[in-house]
Structure formats: C-alpha cells, structure tokens
C-alpha cells in the first residue's frame, strides 16, 4: 500500500515585530502588553492556549511559601490579579480567600516562623496563628495542627479560564494567535529571528521563549542548554458539597493542598502524575491519588462521606533549583526567556508577561530578575534536577 501523502500547507512567511513561543498565561500576557505598546505579535502554541501548565494547576494565587527572591515578582502579579477579570473581560473566579499554611509539628511551626520573619523583610506580611487560633479559624480541621501562618491577601482562581480568556483578549487586540502550531526550529539571522513551526515560518525582530517544559529546547537552539524536566501535578475533585473550606489550604512540606470552589467541589492535590511520552499528555497516578485522598482526609475529616468524581494532571517545566528562568538570553540579543516555573507559575503569569514585554521594549525591567538568570546553569554539570516529590501548585 502506498503511503498517504498530504500536501504541505502553503503559507507565505509571516513577519512580525515579536514571535512568542508558548501559549500560557505568561506568554499571552506578554503578547497583550506588547500589542498594546504598538508592536505586531505572532504567538505559536503547540496545542490550545492555556492547556499547558497554566491550565492544569491547582488554581492557587499564592505568595506565601515562595522562594524569597520570587516575592517581588509575586507581589507585582498579585496587584494585577485584583483587576484581572475586568482586564480580561471575563470572570476568572479570582477570590482573595487567603492562604493558610499549616504546621503539623513543632519543627514545621519553627519553619513557618522563620519564613514569616524573612518574608516581612521582602514585603509579605503573614499572620502567625497558634493552635487555638487555627482551630478557631478552621473548626473543621482534623489533623494535629500546632499552628499556621495566614496570608490574607492570597487567594484562588479557576486555572482553566485564565489562559483562554487571555487568548481571546490577545486576539481581540490583533495578536496573531496560532494554536496547534508546534515550533520545530528557531535561528538567529542578521536582522532577527526565523521561527519554523507547523504550517508557518515566522520572521521577527524579537523572540520570546515562554514554552514551559519545552523552554529548554528553545534555549538549546541558541546555545544555552538548561536542565528543565517535566513536572506533573496530581489533582482530584470531589462531588459538590456545602461550602465550608473558605480558605486555600497548604501544609509545610507541600504534600497536600485543598481548596473549595463556590460551586461546592473540593479540589485537592498532592504528589505527581505520569507523563505519557507518546502523546505528551499527563495523567494522575493511582498511588499518588490515594495518598492525596488519605492526607486530605486527615486534614479535613468532614470529607469522609464524599465521592471523588474527577482527577487531572498536566505538564509544567521543573528547574533543579525550583525557581524559573526569567530574563534575557545570555547568547542572543533580542531573545528573552520565561519558563520552568516548577509548579508555581500560575500566580506569577500576568506579571511575568509584563516583565517579558519590558525586556523586549526597553531592554530592561524594574522587577528584580537577577536570581532567575539563565546563566546560573552555564556550568551546570548534572542532568535535570531531582524530581520533587511534593509541590504546592
């Protein structure tokens, strides 16, 4: 039998000021900002916008618990979240419900106290709660909790809605958003970049690499390989229940995290899922799901009669030091990176896009991004970092 030959899609090369690889929140926020500044933008996403790490996370909009060097970026993003639904023209279900991190031992509590002390110097105010105060605040808590720290301004949002809403805003503004367009190659020429993708060749003066777990491939193409590995959250959902988990809940160690949406479903996560290399899709892993269910029940015993009706996973990029790469390329003028958010990029996305836009437009940003420089992996001898067992997404 002869092979089926499909004629290649013939389209002329597309020219734009900026080419963006990736269709997550950071990429789309950059596209929107750049377009509003008057530049022409082509964005290429291998599947659907917001279907990658931006869309499959827990939905935590959390500053608490981050590496301190991330806090200035996180604070900048938090301001954007307040007006995000209005900005996007669609409700993304953001609520500043607060985020409580629980200590299940004296050692945990000491860690929370140390964190709160330093976080204050970084501008994040946390409220320490003793055992009585935490049980007063969350009377349904079951686990032996010896204390907690509360970040009242943190909250939660619906991750499935944010990316698509950004994509529609970008399109309305005139960004050339191309979905199902995986990038296959990119090079620097004398006057800019040539990006090869399925069905299109894009010529651009600037290139933004916001390709999530694929960000390392793009960086490698420009001679700066980085150790990025896939990371898969393991998320579960109960049937709708009366609303009672008013805060977003995490624990020291991050082995379980719980929130409840107004609709009534309790969403919880813990551990990591499984990536199917053949399809590049991820799926929850039973042991992890059962472990997450057990840990959630210890935390919230009132869920004992609930049924788990749904679960999901997805793929993010994980860096060995668990903080992203954000900043200009060290080898290639006009190229900027933002990838490897290591399971906690959802909250950062809106601000990261603005920072990327500033780097393109001005060559610099007011936000302190030095700790995220790609050069930190310049002499990296090891492979990708160890898989983290638990990340609060």
């Amino acid at each position, binding site marked *: 039998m002869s092979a089926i030959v499909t004629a290649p899609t013939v389209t002329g090369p597309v020219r734009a000021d900026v080419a963006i690889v990736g269709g997550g929140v950071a990429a789309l926020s950059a596209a929107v900002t750049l377009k509003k500044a008057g530049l022409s933008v082509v964005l290429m996403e291998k599947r659907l916008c917001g279907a990658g790490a931006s869309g499959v996370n827990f939905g935590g909009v959390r500053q608490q618990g981050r590496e301190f060097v991330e806090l200035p970026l996180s604070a900048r993003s938090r301001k954007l979240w307040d007006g995000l639904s209005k900005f996007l023209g669609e409700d993304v279900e953001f609520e500043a419900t607060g985020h409580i991190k629980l200590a299940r031992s004296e050692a945990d509590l000491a860690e929370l106290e140390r964190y709160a002390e330093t976080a204050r110097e970084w501008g994040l105010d946390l409220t320490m709660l003793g055992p009585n105060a935490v049980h007063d605040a969350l009377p349904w808590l079951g686990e032996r909790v010896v204390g907690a720290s509360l970040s009242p301004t943190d909250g939660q949002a619906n991750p*499935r*809605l944010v990316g*698509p809403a950004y994509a529609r805003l970008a399109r309305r503004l005139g960004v050339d958003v191309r979905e199902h367009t995986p990038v296959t190659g990119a090079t620097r020429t004398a006057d800019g970049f040539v990006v090869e993708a399925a069905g299109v060749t894009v010529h651009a003066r600037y290139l933004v690499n916001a390709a999530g777990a694929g960000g390392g491939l793009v960086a490698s193409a420009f001679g700066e390989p980085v150790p990025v590995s896939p990371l898969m959250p393991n998320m579960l959902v109960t049937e709708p229940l009366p609303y009672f988990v008013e805060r977003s809940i995490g624990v020291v160690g991050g082995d379980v995290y719980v929130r409840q949406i107004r609709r009534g479903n309790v969403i919880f996560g813990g551990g990591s899922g499984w990536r199917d290399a053949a399809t590049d899709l991820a799926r*929850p892993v039973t042991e992890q799901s059962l472990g997450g269910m057990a840990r959630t*029940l*210890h935390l919230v015993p009132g869920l004992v009669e609930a049924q*788990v009706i749904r679960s999901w996973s997805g793929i993010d990029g994980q860096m060995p030091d668990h903080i992203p790469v954000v900043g200009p390329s060290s080898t290639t003028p006009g190229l900027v990176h933002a990838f490897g958010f290591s399971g906690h990029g959802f909250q950062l996305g809106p601000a990261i896009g603005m920072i990327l836009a500033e780097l393109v437009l001005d060559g610099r940003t007011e936000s302190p991004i030095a700790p995220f420089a790609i050069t930190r992996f310049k002499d990296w001898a090891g492979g990708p970092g160890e898989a983290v067992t638990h990340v609060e997404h």
Partner: protein
Amino acid sequence: MNAHGHSEHGLPAGRNGDDPVIAVVGAGPAGLRAVETLAAAGLRPVLIDEAARPGGQIYRQPPPGAERPAEALYGLEAPKARVLHALVPALGESIDYRPETLVWNIGGDRLDLKTARGFETLDFDRLVLATGAMDRVLPFPGWTLPGVFTLGAAQIALKAQGAAIGRRVALVGAGPLLPLVVHQYLKAGATVVAALDVTPFGAKVAALPGLMNEPATLAKGLWYTARNALAGRRIVSGVRAIRVEGEGRVTSLVWQDAKGREHRVACDAVGASFGLRSECQLADLAGVKLRFEPTTRQWIPERDQSGRTSRPDVYVAGDGAGIGGADAAELQGERAALALLQDLGRPVDAARVARLDARLARQARFRAALERAYPFPAHLLAAVSDDEIVCRCEGVTVGLLRSTATGRDAHEMNRLKALSRIGMGRCQGRVCGQAAAELLAAARGAEVATVGRLRGNPPVKPIPIREAIR
C-alpha cells in the same frame, strides 16, 4: 491493598505461576462467552463485573430472592438468558469471578478496582474489555423531570426490580430497543399510553434489504411490532417536538406527528432514549486508540474483526467495542478470546474461527442496515431551546453551550468542558457528552467528528474517598 491481583482466598489469579493473568471486564454476553472460551482452553480468567449477578444489562438478573421466570423477563430471548446465566455457576472454580467490582481506572497493565472490601488492584497480562453500552440521551423539554427515565433504565426496572417506571407509561425512542421495551412493558401488564419513534417510517423501509442478513432477528423485531399492535399499542413513526409536561413530576407527554399535528397524553412516567452509546472510557484509559464511527456518530475503540485493538494485550468485545447487540456480543466475546489464545501461542480450531468470522460479518451487515433504519436523530437538537439543561450534573444549559461554542472560541470538546463545566460532574460526560458534541458541532457549523471527544481521566465512576484510609 493487594498489588498482585490475588483473589480473596489468596489463590493466584492464574492456575499456576506460569499462566498469564487474563482479566475480562464485564459479565454480559460478550464477557461471559470470553471467559467460557478461555476457561475451556485451561486458563483461569478473572471475570470482573459491577453487578451482583452475571448477565449484563440485556440479560440482567433480579436480586437473589426476587427471581421470576426467564420468559417473563426476557421474552423470546429467555433461552439465551438461561444459557448465559448458567455459565458462571457451571464454570465454578475454573474462573475467578469477582462481582460487585468496579474498574475505576487502568494504568499501564494494572486495573484499579473498588470492591466491597475497598480499593484493590489487579495486574494483568491480557485484558478483554466487554464494557457494554448505555442509552444515548438527548435533551428535550422536561427531560430532567422526575418520572423521566431512559429506555434502558425502564428495562432494568422491570428486570431487576420487577417494577414498571409508572402506571401510565409513555415510551419514546430511536432504535430497535423501543419495540422491545414496549413489548416487555405490555407483557408485564403495564399501561403503555404512547409508543413514539422519532425515526421516519421511510428509513426503516429503506433498510429492509440489509436487515435480511439476519432474518431471524428481523422476524423477532417484526413479531414484537405485531404483538404490540395486537395489544393495541402501535408504534407511531416520525414524531417530532417531544415535550414532557409537569410540575415537579411528569403529568403528560406532548408531541407532533409526521403531519405536524400536536398530541398530548396524560402519563406519570416517560421512558426515552435515542439509541445506544458504547462505554469505552476504560479502553481510552488503557491507551487503546479510538476512532470516530460516522454512521452512529460516536467514538469507539479501533479494532479488527477479532477484537484486537491498537494495544497488543488489550481486546474489546460486545457493545463497548461498537454497538452490535447481544447476539453479536456473544460472538465477539468468543472471537476475542480465540484471538487472545492465538496470540498466546495456544492451539485454536481454525474452522471455529472461520465460522465465527462468517457469522460476525453477517451481523455487521445487519447492524449497518439497522443503523440506517434508525439514524441518530441529531436533528432533534436543532429544535432544542437554549433554556434546556444538557448536563444535569452541573446544570449546564444548551444556551450556555451554544454561546461558549461561538462566543468563547470553544471549538473542541475538552475546551468546551473547561469553559462551561459540561461533563465535569458525577457522570463525567457519559450521559451528556454526545449531545454536547452534537450541539458544539452544530453551533460552529462543523462536522461532529471534528470537535473531538472528552479525554478520559480516572475515576470513570465516582469513588468513595473514605476507602483511601481503610
């Protein structure tokens, strides 16, 4: 938790350590014929079934203590039901039968089970999926009112509980199940106040030559129709604009006949569904490739005539592998088991395989004609108003789906789910998914094949969180 698939008496799933573990999911006609064939070859298959007693839906048995004569429950199919029901007791210890066991996930070569004892797992070497089908549900005004059932549920009520869904029952359908349920209800002494087929009469006439491939089955269909007519309940073809009325409970059914005249009948229950859909979530989770079947407008596992799938250790049979009916399911179960035995290098009677293949080919021609006789009435959805609920778990309306499809760039089922919550509830889209795909495609002016399908994720049915700490 038991990671090695040992049954409760601690015996290995195989007869000895060298035998492969063969799991058969579903104890309907396909699964039962599969385990019979495997056991006859000296293997000891594990038969996993959600129900308490074997038979599947078509030959569903009443609970112990509520038995009734097979003739009363299964009509002309009683002899087949009796044979299949007798199989499991006859096979005895030569199979590892696990009733009341839900397979809620498949990861790699492991089944995740929920049993009366809690969560368990079973590692398999070969897997036969005989997961059956359920009714295809379409929204119409009043379909969520208490008192509205699917035709399948109406049948199950009769077979399992010995109860009709109401005292004055109206039955609506688009498939060969309708005359059968009408017949069963009349025979059980229920009052059937209307029997309505949304299929135009002409489609059935045009399909007659193809239906001659299985004259006996065709004759049975005609016999049911004739008996129904003799009992005063002629099936009306080509009805439209079905609407259930009632305040908190069904009180009447309204419809238009083929000439556009409106009719109303008082009733206290309605059975309605529009054909069958394959249950293929487990095949999806197993990584079996699915394909879009244009005649029936649904995604089914890609398979060859023997039931082999894109995954070499997974086989499919029965309605879960594409709607074929109970007789085809028996043949397919046997055929898949023979293919499995061949693949294990066991001797298989070539004449038997050839005979089965010939009968399956005839069944396939009959089925194709049947699908032409009862085309899926996708056109009914065009008339459904925006106010109707399509996903009852999440309360998603037709209007929200349509506006999400056009106004929010949802051109694909998983994106539609993300934005509208369709299929996010307890049923995971098993009830609403196909109607949603039709509505999405229609709203975008696209072919239904192009909007994709809801990707499978565990659990396929709700699982109790409490079992995680047992």
